[in-house]
């Protein structure tokens, strides 16, 4: 249906046709706007029906003229709500949702240049009265056409302004400020994966010469050691086979380079991982969970029956407030071989010894 045919129709007929096409806010559209909206909607339907991928996509994503008209109409309608005018009873939106969008409408209005939206409202009110006469006088239709073109140009500006105003970020509340450090003195070690242990500590006392952080295996051998600057706290990641780590200690470096253990980790590590230990595991055992009885038990492969349980071997030697410093000088690898060691143990035998994930600025490999 072309423009001239549409112009010759009554407003009522146009509204019915527009309604069938799914055009909204009919009551607030002038005749010329209705005509434009119908033409655009028909184009859209035809374009979608062509089943061309490109046209389908652009039909939805692009801001075609019908959509622009609707967009502007909605702005005007929001303005009506703001100005205390009753919303159109035929409108699909509830008052609630309009109220919810009131604040946004305010924003949208701000971008309308020189009260243009208000002008539109005034024009629309007067134009509504003139619409009835338009039905009879053909000359008026031409005038309406002209006015519609002008309106459309203005609406384009408004839509652009609306789109520009569309917010892309909002205020972000990042929550309460926490103290940088937790109070008290502590040293924690957490198994992160089979090759990594996360360690952090906090001390209420100073260590002028820095700290020495050391991971030990179940036999008391040094697995990995790091020195750290003299901060009271820090955190970082030991790259060690975590199954072998039994405990972690934090030692205070004293005058002359000696160190004295101040803290020992609060969590027993090796037990937690549960990965297959170096020693053979227990034998196969089957139980009846309902009757609580063992129905089959096989001896552990390659292990004498009197050999202690794996868990028991994981108790690291620990004496009072310190430990035997000689452990730092003897490093035993997984084959039981004593290797050349630095003062703080062999550092290069761990799987990822060349990298230190985490806050490496706070923990420095010794």
């Amino acid at each position, binding site marked *: 249906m072309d423009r001239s045919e549409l112009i010759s129709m009554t407003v009522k007929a146009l509204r019915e046709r527009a309604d069938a096409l799914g055009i909204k806010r009919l009551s607030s559209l002038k005749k010329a706007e209705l005509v434009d909206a119908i033409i655009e909607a028909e184009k859209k339907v035809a374009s979608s029906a062509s089943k061309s991928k490109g046209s389908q996509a652009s039909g939805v994503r692009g801001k075609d003229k019908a959509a622009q008209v609707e967009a502007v109409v909605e702005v005007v309608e929001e303005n009506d709500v703001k100005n205390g005018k009753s919303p159109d009873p035929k409108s699909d939106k509830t008052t609630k949702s309009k109220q919810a969008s009131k604040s946004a409408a305010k924003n949208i209005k701000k971008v309308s240049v020189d009260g243009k939206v208000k002008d539109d409202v005034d024009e629309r009110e007067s134009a509504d009265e003139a619409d009835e006469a338009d039905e009879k006088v053909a000359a008026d239709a031409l005038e309406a056409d002209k006015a519609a073109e002008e309106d459309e140009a203005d609406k384009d500006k408004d839509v652009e302004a609306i*789109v520009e105003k569309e917010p892309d970020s909002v205020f972000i509340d*990042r929550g309460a400020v926490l103290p940088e450090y937790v109070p008290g003195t502590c040293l924690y070690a*957490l198994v*992160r*994966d089979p090759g990594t242990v996360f360690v952090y500590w906090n001390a209420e006392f100073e260590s002028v010469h820095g700290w020495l952080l050391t991971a030990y295996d179940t036999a008391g051998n040094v697995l990995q050691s790091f020195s750290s600057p003299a901060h009271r706290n820090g955190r970082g990641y030991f790259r060690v086979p975590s199954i072998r780590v039994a405990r972690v200690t934090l030692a205070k470096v004293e005058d002359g380079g000696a160190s004295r253990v101040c803290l020992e980790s609060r969590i027993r590590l090796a037990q937690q991982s*549960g*990965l297959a230990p170096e020693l053979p595991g227990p034998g196969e055992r089957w139980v009846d969970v309902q009757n609580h009885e063992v129905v089959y038990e096989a001896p552990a492969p390659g292990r004498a029956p009197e050999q202690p349980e794996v868990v028991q071997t994981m108790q690291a030697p620990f004496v009072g407030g310190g430990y035997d410093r000689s452990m730092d000088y003897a490093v035993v690898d997984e084959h039981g071989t004593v290797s050349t060691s630095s003062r703080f143990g062999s550092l290069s035998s761990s799987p990822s010894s060349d990298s230190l*994930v985490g806050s490496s600025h706070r923990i420095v490999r010794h």
Partner: protein
Amino acid sequence: MSLQGYLSIVLHAHLPFIRHPEYPDFLEEDWLFEAMTETYIPLLRMMQRLNDDHIRFRLTMSLTPPLCEMLADPLLQERYVSHIDRLSELAELQRREKMGTPFQDAATAQADELLETKRLFEQVWNRQLLPVFRKFQDQGDLEIITCGATHGFLPLMATDEARRAQISIAVANYKKHFGRAPRGIWLPECAFVPGIDALLAENGISFFILESHGLTQSNPPARYGTFRPVVTPSGVAAFARDLESSRQVWSAEIGYPGHPDYREFYRDCGFDLPYAEVRPYLHSDGVRRNTGLKFFRITGKLPLDRKEPYVPNWAADRAAEHAGNFLFNRQAQCRYLKSVLGTTPHITSPYDAELYGHWWYEGPRFLEMLMRKAACDQDEIQMITPSEYLQVETVHQEVMPCLSSWGANGFFEVWLNDGNDWIYPHLHCAEERMVELATRFPDAQGDLRRALNQAARELLLAQASDWAFIITTNTSVEYAEKRTRDHISRFNGIYAQITENRIEPNWISELEWKDNIFAEIDYHAYSPIHRHPHAGAVYISKDND
């Protein structure tokens, strides 16, 4: 053919506690509303349809305590009604707008779906979803299991008291909502370390779900790998994830949800419609977001602007076809396993519940067709819940599973890395303080008791593994950080008031109003556990003494 194997489908339904009464409109509450609309209600509708057709199905679902608390919360129920009203309204507009276009079917189907969802929620279920889940559990079709109280990542907690509290508070909450004790648990993030099993046994839990390598690298090795559950030395059964069936659904490359006929998740009306048209359905900040209405299909590996219209009938057919394929593969898998293992295998297929419906729109349809086909078309595979299986098969190998989680790379690095490790010193400090408070005040009453209970709530909320996860995945980082900071800060404030004997009842009331999870909480859950004298180590269980 005779029985070749058992299959347990386990869905993990979880959301962190995202209730914000202090704001009239809060974006993150949409997480719940979307999951309700797209997953929980469609799953209930699926169960109802099966029930109406007298099909005995077997499904296991974990409904985590925060999720249960939110689903039962009147404020969130009220807000959900507003949400579904607005969404239905937009769907109706789209139905009319898309009439006569290639999107007509998609728009109509989704508008109808929403109308039915709204009707059921308000008129049939009286806004209460938990009793509907409970009904199916009581009928024996559904097994509901619990989870950590707030989905706290148990292996990264410093104290056994905190781990135990996560479990015992979850059990108490389950009893409140479902009228009986839970038999099973979905460990938060499937994260396990030896010792957790003892805490489960202590709380009457019979089984838990485990990641595959928790068994395949166990000590001693599990004779049947993941194809039969094991029991830990504490007597709790562990059902490990089957990789093959998981991959068929999860995999981005070969998984069913990636089929071109399925609905495209990333092409949403919230971004397609003209701004003025969609604005009333956005949050008050006006930022474009997903609405849940989507009219395109995946189409293929194409840019979003080249996607084609969604055709609901095609997608429904494809879901039925995929259900048949899934069942066919399980039959083949079980036939083979039975022939080589010499025992009837059990397949555990755990998934995020939100995969079904939210991410994979046709997921509930897939599940429904799977249940129908399994019940009516064959007898090789028996769908079963873990509890039922433990009744059928009572003899199991005793194995201690190992360190594992279902996160990327299989261990804990998603929840412990350079981006989020700042959380742990604060959490551990709060844990120790909570234990200290429970020790100091064994018989608190009045405002002190309220303060202690609220301190426990704040600690639990801060411990949710979701926050560390979100920080790692870089999605809603600010929100996750805010929640962590706020709860720790509130905990510290309460701790200071209690220890300095200056409790402000009004402030406690405000926190009770804001963070109202677990009305039934009892701070004694943090009463101290015996500690081993050696080296300040926390003892995991008496079995290790």
